[in-house]
């Protein structure tokens, strides 16, 4: 049971890059951004991730350059620590333990050896700005408990705090007022805007604040799109402000350029506005940035700006307002309709991305590969506007075809529906629109699937719709004299008693099509389109439907809304088994018979992995996530893993990824996070002097090859030893976890013997004895096992809660016992 801890649910990339303002290094070579529990270091030139600084145990909430040493970086986290990093080498230098949750971090050059942080100590929604004294100490772990209070009742967001003019004052905004605290005088001035309910002032709320670097000027952004420039604020009466108004919606962030000559602002318009000399008439725009600007930051050298966008993107912009680089993470700000898919060609994760786009996201490099514009219409960003949504997508024929469905429903009766079929073009390495079908159905399309059989000569697509029909679309010659153009046409329309078609699924060989009509599953012959048989369990509408694979291809699985998982045998046309399981996600592994089902309970989500042939699950993991899991997918591994234990064997060929409601992408991993470093970053660790250009990679490879050659020559010189991997005893010894191994005394002789050259001294008579003993043991074991199963069933109401992991450890024990016996026999023989 201890081994279970080896398998963990881990976040795998895709975390928000736009959670906080990005920070530039002093020379503008690198840009830092928080990303979940890590800090990522990107190169501003190549957009490549150079380092991932990990060490925090919770969300990183703030990063700032060390003002005293610009080669170091401070980061704060909800885990209550401030860490100091050497970002060039990616090394953690120091950890300061503060002890309470830190929500933001600020540094001021003038305040030596102390930083500022937002904490909440007493009540959950009252935040304070405190100054944290960082003690000087040579040890790596330092306690920093000396907090001094600066401002109370501030906004949680770091955008609402700004330090101005060499740290003389700090400005904080919240709701309708601006507070300015002067450090020298230790006084706070507060300026309140009218907040009456009438139309004119209703949206006067402050949203963000920035301070001029050299002058006493505070810029504040407001809900109604105004920017106010406050001056003379050390006088409660004579204070004055100027209004700049261009944004029509909330100002999301403000930043002054390094010299203070221009002010940058951004908002939902996705336009970066540069106000030069802080005058209303003198402004420049950088439009069409794609998504709401969440943060703006300016490099200390003054040559670069950067904007963080709501679609998890960072754009690096030159001083002359030209976008120079884009760092794009997984787009997550919208709801996912298409589910998770894997592009068979690139092995990229495919899901809804930007509005109207399908994003291809590389799981290995945590980077978006590209966006495919599906809807191909200008996106109008306006609140309350009903947009065209990309609702379904499917890959077919090994990635040659992509089918997408988009819909827009303004009223109950006005449905706009469009299906598009895209062909992969090898020349352009992209998808090209082949067929566009307007209103393929009268009502929403509920499911879409390609026939992915290897031998099928004609690509076939099936769509199921709420209008009660399923349609079969096939690729045919288009009327073209060269007979080269191809297009999709409807081949067959099927229905069953006017029930709504809810799901459809092809069998692995493509011979059968299963379509579920509410509670009923119908099986159709895919050649003649004849109705073969129906299954009806009267257990609620079918939510998921899938065929078994490989050896289990005779089974059909269906999960219903009432929480019943059914498995039908297609040969006997009878229910094989059923189980009570509230299945939210059911995904078959394309490389094995395994099927993963995620059930939802009030506590959280549980994972069950099973084969259709037997109702007992191979593997159960409870509480994989607190929240609802919305989608899951198996991703085939490039290099198969070799988990020997049966419980993890389902992860050998594929990896399972799933997406929760809050859109965090999670997976199962057995590795420690340190091992997950990407190879490129390791290379860069070693070779810092080389710039990260494409040439570098070629050069780097060359060097590696040289190294390898060296190793080879060394090996040749050595005495040829038997390869240790080939000796079973050694491999068993190495692969068995240490805590289940017998004591070293037992193993020692076996190990020594294994290194000797074999002499075929094994006597024939001894083996049967062993077998006998094994059989006896086995019967005992099975008894134990049965007992255990009963226990589990008592505690577990789902009915499938059988733990097979135990069995595995048993089998290992058996093997070990075998070793013991062999051990003795060897001694005797000697």
């Amino acid at each position, binding site marked *: 049971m201890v081994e279970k801890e080896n398998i963990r649910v881990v976040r795998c990339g895709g975390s928000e890059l736009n959670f906080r303002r990005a920070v530039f290094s002093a020379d503008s070579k690198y840009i830092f951004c928080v990303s979940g529990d890590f800090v990522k270091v990107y190169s501003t030139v190549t957009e490549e991730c150079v380092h991932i600084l990990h060490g925090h145990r919770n969300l990183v909430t703030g990063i700032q350059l060390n003002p005293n040493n610009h080669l170091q970086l401070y980061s704060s986290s909800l885990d209550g620590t401030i860490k100091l990093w050497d970002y060039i080498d990616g090394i953690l230098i120091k950890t300061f333990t503060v002890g309470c949750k830190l929500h933001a971090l600020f540094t001021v050059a003038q305040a030596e050896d102390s930083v500022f942080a937002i904490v909440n100590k007493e009540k959950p929604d009252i935040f304070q700005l405190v100054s944290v004294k960082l003690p000087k100490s040579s040890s790596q772990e330092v306690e920093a408990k000396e907090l001094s209070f600066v401002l109370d009742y501030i906004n949680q967001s770091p955008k609402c705090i700004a330090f101005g*003019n060499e740290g*003389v004052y700090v400005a904080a905004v919240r709701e309708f007022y601006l507070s300015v605290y002067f450090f020298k005088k230790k006084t706070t001035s507060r300026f309140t805007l009218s907040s009456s309910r009438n139309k004119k002032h209703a949206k006067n709320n402050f949203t963000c604040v920035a301070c001029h670097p*050299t*002058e*006493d000027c505070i810029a504040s952004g407001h809900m109604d799109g105004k920017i106010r*420039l406050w*001056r*003379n604020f*050390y006088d409660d*009466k*004579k*204070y*004055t*402000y*100027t*209004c700049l108004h261009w944004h*029509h919606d909330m100002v999301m962030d403000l930043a002054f350029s390094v010299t203070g000559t221009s002010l940058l602002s951004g908002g939902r318009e996705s336009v970066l506005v540069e106000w030069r*000399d802080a*005058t*209303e*008439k*003198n402004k420049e725009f950088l439009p069409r940035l794609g998504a709401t600007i969440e943060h703006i930051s300016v490099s200390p050298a003054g040559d670069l700006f950067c904007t963080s966008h709501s679609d998890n993107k960072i754009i690096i912009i030159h001083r002359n307002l030209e976008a120079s680089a884009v760092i794009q993470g997984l787009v997550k700000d919208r709801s996912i309709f298409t589910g998770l898919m894997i592009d068979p060609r690139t092995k990229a994760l495919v899901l809804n991305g930007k509005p109207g786009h399908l994003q291809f996201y590389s799981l290995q490099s945590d980077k978006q590969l590209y966006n495919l514009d599906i809807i191909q219409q200008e996106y109008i960003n306006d609140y309350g506007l009903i947009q065209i949504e990309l609702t379904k997508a499917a890959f077919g024929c090994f990635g040659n075809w992509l089918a997408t469905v988009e819909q827009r429903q303004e009223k109950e009766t006005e449905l706009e529906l469009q299906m598009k079929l895209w062909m992969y073009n090898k020349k352009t390495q992209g998808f090209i629109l082949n067929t566009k079908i307007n209103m393929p159905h009268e009502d929403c399309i509920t499911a879409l699937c390609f026939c992915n059989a290897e031998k099928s000569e004609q690509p076939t697509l099936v769509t199921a719709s709420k209008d009660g029909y399923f349609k079969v679309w096939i690729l045919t010659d288009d009327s073209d004299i060269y007979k080269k153009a191809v297009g999709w046409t409807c081949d067959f329309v099927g229905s069953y008693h006017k029930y709504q078609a809810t799901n459809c699924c092809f069998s692995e060989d493509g011979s059968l099509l299963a379509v579920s009509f509410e509670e009923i599953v119908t099986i159709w012959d895919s050649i003649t389109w004849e109705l073969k048989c129906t299954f009806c369990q009267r257990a609620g509408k079918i939510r998921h439907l899938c065929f078994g694979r490989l050896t289990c291809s005779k089974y059909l699985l269906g999960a219903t809304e009432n929480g019943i998982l059914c498995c039908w045998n297609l040969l006997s046309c009878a229910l094989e088994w059923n189980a009570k399981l509230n299945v939210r996600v059911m995904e078959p592994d394309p490389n094995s018979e395994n099927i993963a089902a995620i059930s939802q309970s009030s506590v959280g989500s549980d994972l069950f992995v099973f084969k259709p042939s037997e109702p007992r699950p191979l593997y159960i993991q409870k509480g994989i996530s607190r929240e609802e899991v919305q989608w899951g997918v198996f991703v085939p591994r490039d290099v198969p893993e070799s988990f020997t234990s049966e419980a993890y064997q389902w992860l050998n060929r594929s990896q399972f990824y799933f997406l929760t409601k809050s859109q965090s992408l999670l997976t199962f991993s057995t590795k420690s996070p340190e091992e997950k470093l990407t190879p490129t970053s390791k290379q860069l660790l070693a070779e810092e002097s080389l710039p990260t250009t494409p040439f570098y990679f070629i050069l780097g490879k060359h060097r590696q090859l040289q190294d390898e050659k060296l190793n080879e020559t060394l090996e040749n010189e050595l005495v040829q030893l038997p390869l240790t991997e080939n000796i079973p005893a050694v491999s068993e010894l190495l692969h068995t976890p240490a805590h289940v191994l017998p004591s070293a005394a037992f193993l020692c002789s076996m190990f020594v013997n294994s290194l000797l050259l074999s002499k075929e001294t094994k006597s024939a008579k001894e083996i049967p004895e062993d077998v006998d003993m094994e059989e006896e043991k086995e019967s005992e074991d099975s008894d134990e096992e049965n007992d255990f199963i009963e226990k589990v069933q008592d505690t577990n109401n789902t009915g499938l809660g059988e733990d097979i992991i135990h069995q595995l450890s048993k089998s290992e024990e058996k093997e070990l016992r075998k070793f013991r016996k062999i051990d003795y026999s060897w001694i005797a023989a000697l």
Partner: protein
Amino acid sequence: MGEFKVHRVRFFNYVPSGIRCVAYNNQSNRLAVSRTDGTVEVYNLSANYFQEKFFPGHESRATEALCWAEGQRLFSAGLNGEIMEYDLQALNIKYAVDVFGGPIWSMAVSPSGSQLLVSKQLLVGCEDGSVKLFQITPDKIQFERNFDRQKSRILSLSWHPSGTHIAAGSIDYISVFDVKSGSAIHKMIVDRQHMGVSKRKCIVWGVAFLSDGTVISVDSAGKVQFWDSATGTLVKSHLIANADVQSIAVAEQEDSFVVGTAEGTVFHFQLVPVTSNSSEKQWVRTKPFQHHTHDVRTVAHSPTALISGGTDTHLVIRPLMEKVEVKNYDAALRKITFPHRRLISCSKKRQLLLFQFAHHLELWRLGSTVATGKNGDTLPLSKNADHLLHLKTKGPENIICSCISPCGSWIAYSTVSRFFLYRLNYEHDNISLKRVSKMPPFLRCALQILFSEDSTKLFVASNQGALHIVQLSGGSFKHLHAFQPQSGTVEAMCLLAVSSDGNWLAASGTSAGVHVYNVKQLKVFEYSIPDKQYTDWSRTVQKQGFHHLWLQRDTPITHISFHPKRPMHILLHDAYMFCIIDKSLPLPNDKTLLYNPFPPTNESDVVRRRTAHAFKISKIYKPLLFMDLLDERTLVAVERPLDDIIAQLPPPIKKKKFGT
């Protein structure tokens, strides 16, 4: 209280002329305003912004510049090439001096703080590019010398506060002159570029010379620019408008200034320290004010307020909140559109209204109705209002005042140079008009004309301070008497009132003294306000004080009349409300509701009596120009909706909604 039938008159097609210049006088807290028709008005800012003096306009005298000198002397210059001084006591023009330089575009008086100059000097900029210096002598001005002549017209002038240098704005450049030598020491070329497009010319509409040597200019390209006059270089430029910036005014402390643009926006600039611990200061544009729809031709900066006026005829006084100590009615925004004098007179007997325009008079007969209705109903007209007469004046001068007799058979009006009296004869629907010729020579210019209730006597207040009584009979007249002013004063009488029995005549002059004359015995009784015998009612009012909301009103009451049958009732109105004060009812205290348009009718008499108080206020009619009783049950109210005035003005500069 009584209900009234109200004639709601909206056919008075009066359009005030646009404001051209304002000049603020810091010593007396008065504001001089000149309009495009040459009218000059003087407002007393201490007395609730009352328009206390008024000089009629003249067709050929378009005022382009207006300034105060030596405290109380008011000068104006205009496109007819003359400098005029106004006599603020006698309310006439003292003299006009031709400067012989073509139309005058600008004028500036030497600053008061100058030590170098023995007496005040007046500087004018002319069409031909000359800048002329005049010496102000106690009773006249005298030409002193010319400065270096420039190529094009001088549109704006400003003295350095020490009086040693002046800045002159011209077309495409600004010149800095040394006053002693009269030569231009710098010529600063203004950029013609306007939003990237080169305009033909860049007109420097205004300049201001600050004591630190900075020259601020505003120009037709929409820029506010700061120049260093010592080196003649541009220091900073603010582009604030897409259209012309037409006016500039600097506060006396030189810590803030105000500019007005052709888009109707007024921008406030303030001198703000760059950082709290440094002495370096910079000019920052702070707040924009959009109170005008049309060009803001002129602005002024009083210590506590920004004053602006323009083509849309409003005079806007926007107080600066940070300068106002307490929140009284000085802190309220004011918009003054209509003159605070009577433009309408009414003949009660014949139900006629006489409207006074700048150059003509209109006589209308009110419509009538036979229908009756409930309180608040609009009654249909059975007979429409008739335009009976259109009387044009001869000559370029504006009408000062006019009056129709209560019987409707006499009309009198006066311009600056002539007095006219007409006799009207009604024959069925026809009207014949006959001018009474051979007016006596002393009746040349009247400031106020009034007929007695029985239309037999005409009272004329002349600008020499004399009051003349003229007996009217049939088609002829006879001069009865002239009340001469007290020896030594030439105070003009600008308000007249006569008692209903015709025995008593009251007159008030510009210094707010009230003279009461007994017409029968031709004797003078004089009361000045402090020792006048107040009535018991006014004593109780003084004792108890007015309702706080009543005191918060900020528009002057323009007309008071008494109900002929009910002596306890006083009717009064200002531009926004009309009020009847019933002296028999208790005064309201601060707890009662001041504005209760109609007492609730469903409640018992006791309740109604308890809630009733002396002030009955109606705000239905606005802006209200005139209101009077025709008879005891009929009122006439003349309104002039602001939208109608705006509709008759030239269209404003078109601005896109989002300003892109």
